């Protein structure tokens, strides 16, 4: 059996006395979608930042696509990508200019063709020549997704991919991600507190609280384990528990 695409082991991130991530570990298998689920300050975005190499951990290790991310991230970065509604593309450049710059950073050869195809897929063709700062939230999200798919990543990390979108656009994005995964066999890891999204997309959920993974499993397993009817109820149960208890080590 091949090594999981993402292997996180004993990951710790401290800021002085504050522990943002407290010794978490998880794996994500190739071609699956997993989620880090938790409230604000649970450690989801910190974990994603470490996985991307933007943040150095205090302890622990991260392997992505068989490479040690802390030592050889430049071998991995061309094969992965990231999208977040909180990381807007520069506002003064047009969408096309932004995408061209990022396409060059990934060393793509057929840049204009790739951008044209993505623009058509993501329905952003008509505002390719508009400044990125003049787009609506839904348009920005689609453009950010186009940026994240430029290099056709094998691993796609998504931070709240449908935050602040209307239900229709959110649903459209989720469908697009499902199609992308089915077509390319990519591995997706998303940080979210949108329960419906996680239930629909993810085979595996890591519930985070106060920097710990307090439980994990498929959405159905978690719902069953807590005797609830949906993932939102599980989330609320865990979030309202007084303390963060690490899951038992098996």
């Amino acid at each position, binding site marked *: 059996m091949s090594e999981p695409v993402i292997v996180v082991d004993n990951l710790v991130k401290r*800021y002085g006395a504050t522990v943002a991530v407290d010794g978490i570990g998880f794996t994500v298998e190739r071609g699956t979608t997993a989620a880090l689920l938790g409230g604000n300050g649970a450690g989801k*975005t*910190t974990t994603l*930042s470490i996985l*991307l*190499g*933007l*943040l*150095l951990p205090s302890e622990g290790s991260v392997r992505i696509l068989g490479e040690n991310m802390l030592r050889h991230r*430049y*071998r991995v*970065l*061309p094969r*992965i*990508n*990231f999208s*977040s509604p909180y*990381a*807007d*593309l*520069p*506002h*003064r*450049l047009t969408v096309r*200019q932004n995408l*061209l*710059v*990022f396409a*060059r*950073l*990934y*060393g793509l050869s057929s840049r204009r063709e790739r951008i044209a195809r993505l623009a058509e897929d993501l329905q952003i063709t008509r505002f390719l020549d508009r*400044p990125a700062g003049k787009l609506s939230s839904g348009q920005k999200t689609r453009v950010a997704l186009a*940026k994240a798919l430029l290099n056709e990543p094998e691993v796609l990390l998504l931070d709240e991919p449908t935050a602040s979108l209307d239900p229709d656009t959110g649903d459209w994005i989720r469908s697009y991600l499902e199609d992308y995964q089915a077509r390319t066999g990519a591995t997706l890891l998303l940080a979210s507190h949108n329960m419906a999204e996680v239930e629909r997309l993810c085979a595996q959920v890591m519930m985070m609280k106060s920097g710990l993974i307090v439980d994990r499993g498929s959405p159905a397993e978690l719902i069953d384990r807590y005797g609830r009817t949906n993932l939102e109820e599980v989330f609320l149960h865990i979030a309202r528990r007084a303390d963060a208890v690490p899951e038992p080590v098996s």
Partner: protein
Amino acid sequence: MTVFSLGRIWAMLLRYLYILRSSWPRTLELLYWPTLQVLIWGFMSQFFAQNSSYVARAFGVLLGAVMLWDLMFRSQLGLSISFLEEMWSRNLGNLFVTPLRPSEWVISLLAMSAIRTAIGVVPAALIAIPLYHYSIFDMGPPLVAFLAVLMAMGWAMGLAVCGLILRHGMGAESLAWTVFFALSPVSCVYYPVTTLPAWLQPVAWSLPQTYVFEGMRTVLFQHVFRTDYFLTAVALDIVFMALGVGIFFLSFRDARHRGALMQMGE
């Protein structure tokens, strides 16, 4: 995976050129201050040429100095502004999840600084030719040596300033516009080092630009290029460049420890 990619450097340079092209007032601003400086100092030089034996001996001593000083300032500012563009647009997180390396980014910043400096300073230098019958280009090959030393020092300061902004956040943004001028009194731009009190002269001689301005005066007054000044300035440039690069890369690594690449911005 290429260790060092010209394609990625060009990508970043292209980004800064797009920004420059997107706003003509910004391009005009590049020209505005150097041109204004040359106009003011040109008229002052004309006045001093009739009333001061110092300027009368070499008309360009003040105009040449102001152009070279401005070139150094523009080199520092050109680098810092491109860096700040990334901070203002909170784009570091987007950039450093790509294969872009910090060293490639730095080279693109240096290249953009050279372009911005040329856009600002060259027209100002050309304006002085018909207006004051003074061409800085008459200095000949020594001018190339002076430019190289001053640009390197401007870049060293720019990198140090960017490092400090990375370390301390946008609260330190004003350093990009102010820190440079702290050195002007001891850089001896318009007067010889001997004008300074004896205790301050060693400080002046520890800066590469002092050798350029002293060297420029030697060229203008004695028609001699002081190779010893040039070599000392190059050696000091290397020291300051190493400091600037060191501060920048240490701050960048520190930003990765603090998570600042994701959060930093206005």
